[in-house]
């Protein structure tokens, strides 16, 4: 697909989504009217920047719905350290299905994740309501991974059991790993301490998410990838970071060239911190505005408080479109990454 074609399809999708939410969400319509933007104002791709964005705190304070409340089947929340109340994102069946399928497609097509078994370096989702855990679990079930194919680290368990399962002959190949970024250094330390080198498979993927900040400080990506490659005997192209945005129900995965591709149903833009209605130049760092055309239960046009860089290119992997580099959180917005809450659990094991 050429970039112009992508722009045309995106424009169509977001015009439709904006009109839907303008017509069906009272809070959002009032907000749009206050700022003076209507669906007809979105004429070209360059007008996507005009779509009014909802600050994340609004999802804490208001029940923002574009469908009847009785249609809501699941409400996902984002963790927060700045408020007792989390932000709530209500999903109806249509939105939930679209979310899970789209994330599954992305992980299969870009992440090249398929088949085998998955070792989640997290508690069982029955015990953890964190989006990073439950969202990923739901997605891999849609991808066809059965209960018997998914292993959890579990609270009270230790890395020893993980290694035992990982190296067992009975476990389906290829074996994939997934977990919060900060768990991996602990796992690698365990391997080194116990002189273990579990070899993974050619098609294995080692995936991580939740940001690059651990309790000891920022983790070096290059350093971690090198250690993982050595420990598991895999290529660095098999290691994939993911960037999840709970506000718009997306989990984006790196390609083999370690670029995070923005799926075509998502639109990101980096905004000027002094005026969030204005985009910074391509490739410049700004506050990320995140929009999804798939969610129909609430207007998924938000400012989650992330900082990053967005640009368009034809990647070496052959994919075209937006690429995002997440660079952290706006500090006053508080740490909202799911991963940090898991760290206390992980400290008790390993």
């Amino acid at each position, binding site marked *: 697909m050429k970039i112009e074609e992508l722009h045309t399809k995106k424009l169509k999708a977001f015009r439709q989504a904006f009109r839907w939410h303008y017509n069906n969400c009272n809070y959002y319509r009032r907000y749009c009217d206050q700022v003076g933007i209507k669906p007809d104002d979105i004429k070209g791709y360059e007008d996507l920047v005009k779509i009014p964005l909802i600050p994340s*705190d*609004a999802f804490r304070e208001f029940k923002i719905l574009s469908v009847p409340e009785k249609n809501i089947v699941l409400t996902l929340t984002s963790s927060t350290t700045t408020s007792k109340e989390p932000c709530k994102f209500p999903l109806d069946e249509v939105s939930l299905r679209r979310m899970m399928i789209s994330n599954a497609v992305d992980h299969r097509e870009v992440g090249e994740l398929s088949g085998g078994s998955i070792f989640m370096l997290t508690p069982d989702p029955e015990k953890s309501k964190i989006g990073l855990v439950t969202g990923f679990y739901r997605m891999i079930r849609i991808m066809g991974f059965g209960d018997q194919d998914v292993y959890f680290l579990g609270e009270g368990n230790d890395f020893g059991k993980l290694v035992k399962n990982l190296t067992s002959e009975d476990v389906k190949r290829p074996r994939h790993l997934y977990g919060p970024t900060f768990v991996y250094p602990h796992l690698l330390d365990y391997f080194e301490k116990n002189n273990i080198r579990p070899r993974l498979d050619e098609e294995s993927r080692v995936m991580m998410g939740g940001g690059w900040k651990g309790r000891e400080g920022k983790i070096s990506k290059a350093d971690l990838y090198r250690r993982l490659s050595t420990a598991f005997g895999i290529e660095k192209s098999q290691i994939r970071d993911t960037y999840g945005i709970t506000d718009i129900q997306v989990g984006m995965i790196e390609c083999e060239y370690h670029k995070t591709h923005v799926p075509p149903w998502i639109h990101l833009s980096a905004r000027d911190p*002094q*005026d*969030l209605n204005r985009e910074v130049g391509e490739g410049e760092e700004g506050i990320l505005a995140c929009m999804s055309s798939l969610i129909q239960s609430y207007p998924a046009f938000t400012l989650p*408080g992330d900082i990053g860089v967005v640009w368009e290119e034809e990647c070496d992997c052959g994919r075209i479109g937006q690429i995002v580099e997440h660079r952290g959180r706006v500090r*006053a917005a508080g740490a909202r990454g799911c991963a940090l809450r898991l760290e206390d659990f992980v400290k008790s094991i390993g």
Partner: protein
Amino acid sequence: MKSFEIPLIINGKIYRGKEQTLLYRLDKEEIKLLMPQITEKEIEVLRKGQSSIHNTSVEDIIRFYEKVGRLWTDKNYALRERALRLARLTTGYHEAMLERSYDIISNEILSREFMEGILESNFLDKRVVDAWLELKDTKLSAKPRGRILHILAGNAPPVSIVSMLYGSLTKNVNILKFSSGDPITPLFFVLSFRDVDRNHPITRTTSVVYWRHDSSVERKTLEIVDGVCVWGGYESISAFRKKTKPGQILLEYGPRKSFQFIGREIYNEDHLLKLTAENAAHDLVLYDQQACHSPQVAFVEEPAEKFCEALAEALKIESKKIPKGYVSTDEHATISHQRLMATFRGDKVYHPGTTEWTIILTKKFEHTLNHPLSRTLFVIEVKDLRDALRYVDPSVMVVAFSSKSRMDELKDEVTLRGADRVTLVGRMGYFPTGSPHEGRYDLSNLVRWVSRDLTKGELKIRELLNKLPKYRVRWVRVG
């Protein structure tokens, strides 16, 4: 990256080194401040030093500080020039704000009038710090506690000097631990002591130090001090509550907020509305709203929109007189986020197109709780200012009124609810001599009150003297 070296001071002696670093980032510019590491060895030097300056008279202390003040009134004074250059980088404040702060320190705070004023308002009779004064059936004197550790904050430069004066005027020895937010003001003022008198007891006993939180050096210092003045946020104050020991005085200067109460009398005449708005704007811009006396919320009798429009015009002008200091990307983003949030709530937002200042006209007090500061004023319309009284509690330091009559009308209600001070809009950042601070007169807490009983004989003589007719008695020498 630019690097600057600053010394530390122990009992007047200058220590140099580069073992400790403070890092500042202004946009893409990084600044490193290098200073020596204070170790337990230096704390031992502190401990062995003089533990009070009780032999120095208050008059001598005042004269000393007056001379320091005079040095700093000279804008070309080398230390002042250097302090301004560095403080701009470390505080982020605009040069105009810092010049203003240093003018206030040199012309007002270090003036005889101010210092005598503090003493008289705290002790009624300032001679009690030097001598024994008769009170009822006793003679009373105020003795220094000894060594006072000042944990300084970085949000308002004059505060470091006021804290230091509290210690000196009560003849205590000062150990000033500066904040990373403003290392320069206290350090450079103390450095200037040497230009006044190298051998003065104040020069020889004042220390300016820095260490990381919870270090062993902090613990050792706490063992040798007799009192601690803590300026800062909840975390800092809570921490020092746990660290100080019984018998050690702890004076807390914690985080507070302030309000403006604007009455409808300002709408009677255009010039009154304009003047009130100008005064309100001035209160808002001082220290970029970082000070305890900075207004965060204005309660305005309807129609509040009229006030907001006038305030917006006034802020356009006031921002040019005292420009805003450095604003980080995070702060810009937080202000912008709050504006969007306010809009989503249906509030009315006024701003100049940049993040220079913001007025948010909102209906709910709850909307003000996630305050971005940085020259943001929430305005809540009320039918009557009495409707705003329920929001005043002990977290409120200053309530400023739009007129004297409204101030006198509500001063009891406001102060009974916890506010420490009532004043007029435009005066929030100016504490008149004689004002208490945090609801206290703290010089009284920085001394030990000691008494010497009057003897029976003395009491008898006094009794007899009181019975004498009230005419002048002239003592005549016989023989």
